[in-house]
C-alpha cells in the first residue's frame, strides 16, 4: 500500500495490522524515552489547508516519535495566499524529497489528486466532507482496546452526517470490522443515499438504547447560518446526548472539538463512559502505525539520508 486516501484502501486484515502495530507503539509512549528510530532520516510533510489542532499535532508527534523529520506547511501565511495552486504547491514541496505528504484540505478528493502529482506516500488527513481515514482508524483502535472486537456491536453515529468526513470513514471502518452502524440526525443533515455505505438511517434517538457505542458528531455553527436546523435549541432538544439518554454500559465517543451544550451535555463529556481523551491519545500511536505501514521498508525519498536497510515489517523498538 502506497497511500492512505480512504478507508476503502484497507481491508479488514490491514486495519487489524495497523491497530496491532499501534498497540505496540503504545508501549513506547509509556517509556521514559518515547522515540524509536524506525523512520530516521525520513521526511514527513504536513500540508494543511484547513485549521486543525489535534490532527496536525498528532501527525507531527507521531512522525517525531518515529525519528522522522517533519516539515509543517500551513496554507495561511504561505504562497497559497498569493494564489499558488494546489498542484504547484505540491510540486514545490515535492522538490524537498518528502517520503510522506499528510494532506488536509477543504476539498473532496484533494489527497487523491495530490497522490497523482507526487512520488511521496500520501495520507489523507481529511478531504472536505469526504473522508478522514486516520480518525476512523484511531476510533477503531480505541474501541478495540475497550471492547476486544466490534463483531455484532451496534454503533450509532449521531449528528451532522451530511457534512461529516468522520462519519463516512467511520461507517466504512466499523462495518468492515463487523459492527452494525446506524446514522442518526435530523433529515436535513442526513444525505440522501447514505444507506449505500452500509448503514441504517434513523431520524430520532428513540432506540438509542440498542447502541453499544454512541458516536456524537460535532455540530458546526456555520451549518446553523445555512439553516440546516431551525435553531441550536431545537437541535439539542432532539439530538443532544446527555446522561438521561445514555445508559451506563454505553460508550461515548466524539472526534472533537466538543460543543458543550449542543451535541453533548457537559455531564457526559466528563463521565467515565466518555472515551474522548482516549481517542486523542490513540491519535498519536495510530498515526505512528500508519506512517510506519506506508514508509517502513519502502525506498527512501531522494532527499532523505535514512536507514535504507530497514525492511522488517515489525517496529524497531529502541
Amino acid at each position, binding site marked *: 500500500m502506497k497511500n492512505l486516501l480512504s478507508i476503502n484502501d484497507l481491508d479488514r486484515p490491514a486495519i487489524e495490522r495497523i491497530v496491532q502495530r499501534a498497540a505496540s507503539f503504545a508501549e513506547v509512549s509509556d517509556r521514559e524515552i518515547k522515540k524509536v528510530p524506525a523512520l530516521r532520516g525520513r521526511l514527513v510533510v504536513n500540508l494543511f489547508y484547513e485549521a486543525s489542532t489535534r490532527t496536525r499535532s498528532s501527525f507531527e508527534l507521531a512522525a517525531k516519535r518515529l525519528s522522522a523529520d517533519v516539515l509543517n506547511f500551513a496554507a495561511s501565511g504561505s504562497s497559497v495566499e498569493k494564489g499558488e495552486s*494546489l498542484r504547484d504547491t505540491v510540486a514545490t514541496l515535492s522538490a524537498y524529497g518528502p517520503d510522506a505528504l499528510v494532506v488536509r*484540505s477543504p476539498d473532496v478528493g484533494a489527497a487523491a489528486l495530490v497522490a497523482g502529482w507526487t512520488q511521496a506516500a500520501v495520507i489523507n488527513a481529511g478531504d472536505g*466532507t*469526504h473522508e478522514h481515514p486516520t480518525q476512523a482508524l484511531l476510533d477503531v483502535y480505541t474501541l478495540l482496546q475497550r471492547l476486544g472486537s466490534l463483531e455484532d456491536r451496534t454503533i450509532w453515529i449521531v449528528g451532522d452526517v451530511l457534512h461529516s468526513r468522520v462519519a463516512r470513514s467511520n461507517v466504512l471502518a466499523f462495518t468492515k470490522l463487523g459492527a452494525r452502524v446506524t446514522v442518526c440526525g435530523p433529515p436535513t443533515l442526513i*444525505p*440522501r*443515499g447514505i444507506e449505500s455505505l452500509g448503514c441504517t438511517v434513523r431520524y430520532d434517538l428513540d432506540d438509542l438504547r440498542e447502541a453499544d457505542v454512541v458516536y456524537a458528531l460535532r455540530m458546526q455553527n456555520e451549518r446553523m447560518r445555512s439553516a440546516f436546523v431551525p435553531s441550536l435549541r431545537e437541535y439539542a432538544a432532539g439530538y443532544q446526548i446527555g446522561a438521561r439518554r445514555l445508559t451506563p454500559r454505553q460508550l461515548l465517543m466524539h472526534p472533537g472539538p466538543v460543543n458543550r451544550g449542543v451535541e453533548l451535555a457537559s455531564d457526559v463529556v466528563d463521565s467515565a463512559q466518555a472515551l474522548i481523551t482516549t481517542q486523542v491519545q490513540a491519535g498519536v500511536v495510530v498515526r505512528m502505525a500508519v506512517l510506519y505501514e506506508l514508509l517502513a521498508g519502502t525506498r527512501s525519498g531522494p532527499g532523505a539520508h535514512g536507514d535504507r536497510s530497514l525492511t522488517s515489517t515489525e517496529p524497531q523498538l529502541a
Partner: protein
Amino acid sequence: MTQRLFRAPAPEATVLVSGAHLLDPRGDLDGPGDVLIRAGVIAEIGAPGGLTAPPEAERVNGTGRHLLPAFFDPHVHLRAPGQEHKEDVETGTRAAAAGGFCGVVAMPNTDPPLDSAPLLLALRETARRDARVPVGFMPCISRGMEGEQLTDMVELREAGALGFTDDGRPVVSSGLMRKALQYQRLCGGVLALHEEDPALSAGGSMHEGEVSARLGIGGIPSISESTMIARDAALAAYEGGRIHIQHVSAWESVTAVAAAKAAGTQITAEASPHHLLLTDEDVRELDTRRKMNPPLRTERDRQAVIDALRSGVIDCIATDHAPHHRDDKDVPFEQAAFGTTGLETAFSSLYTELVLPGVLGLARLVQALSEGARVLDLTVPRIEVGAAANCCLIDLQASWQVGEAGYESRAENSAFAGSTVSGRVLLTLADGIVAYRERAFALTAA
C-alpha cells in the same frame, strides 16, 4: 430576411461523392448512390457509378462509407469574446467541422456576456472572418446574465439573434421569465432555458444520490431541474410563448417535458451525448472532465433520456460543447469548472454506445443530430437536389481512441477521453464549402 448564420468566405465546393451509402432520415434515401455537388449545391443524385464528374470536380470515393446530412448543434460555447484561452470561433468551429457539424449556435455566457446589439454585430464580424462552419448566436435573456432586466430583445433579433438564453444560469425570477415570453411576441426567437433552481442546487457539484452521499460532495438534485421546467412550461402556456429546454438530464424532467407537450405547450427539448451515455457512477473517481451542469445522473435517468429521444419527447441532440483550460480542470473536483467538450465525439460516441448495441436506430441518431436546426427555425440539412451541400461522409467501421491525436478544439476536457469509438468523420461539407477533410483520408483520396 435577417441573416442569422455567419461563416468565413471559402470557395464553393464541386465534389462527386461516388458509391457511398446515402442516408437521409427525412427523405426516403437509404442506399448506395452518387451525389454530385456543384458550386456548393447538391446538383444530382444518381445510382452508384452513374454520375460523371465535371472536370473541375474533386472526386471522393465513398464506397463502404455513409453520406449523411451534416449535424447541427444548437448549443455550444465558443468562449469568444473574453475567454479565448479556452476556445475561440475558429478552433470551436474547426472542432465542429471535424465532428461532422455544418452549423453551431454559440451561447452568450462570455466575458462580457453577449447582451447587446453592438457586441452581436462584432461577433458576426468575427464569425465572418474565422468560422469554418456557419455560426449562429443566442444573446442573453437578461442584461449581464444577471436575471434582473431584459436585454434589448427586439434590437438583438434585428441584429441577427437566433433566440435568447441565459445558459449556464437559470432565469430565477418567474416574473422576468414571464416578461421574456411576453416580449417574444414582438421579436420571435426561441427562449432556450438552462433549468435549475439555485435554491435547491446551491453548493452542488454532482448529482445528488448515492455516489454524492458516499463522496461527501454537495448534490444537485434532479428536482432542481424538473421543477423549473414545470414552472416555465406553465408560464409559456399562459403567455402562448415558445421555449426550448436545454440539456435535459433527469427522468423527472422528461416527465415534465412530456406533460407539457401533451398539454399542447410550444416546448422542445434537447439532450447531450454525455447524459445519454454516462452516469454519476462514472464520476466516482472524481474525474473533473466528467463534472458538468446539469450533472451526470443515474442509470434510471439515463434510460429515461434515451427513451425520450426515441419517442420524440426530446427533439434533438445538443453537445453543450464546453471547452475549458487545463487550469480550470486540474484542481479539486468541487473547484473545477463545469463542462465537457463534445463536438468531435458526439456522433462517434453515440453511434458506438447506442446504435451499435441496437438501442437507437442510426436514422434517428442522424435525424436528432440535425433536428436542432428545426428547433431554431433554420433550414434543416438534407441530401436532396437543390439543397445547399450540408453533408458529412463517415466511415462507420473506422475505430479510434478519443484524444489519441489531440483535438481540433483548443480544449482537452472531453468526458470521453481515452474511450475507443467507432465512426470516423472523413469529410464535412457545410453551407456548400468543404469545412473538414480527415488528414489521412485527404491523402488517400488525392
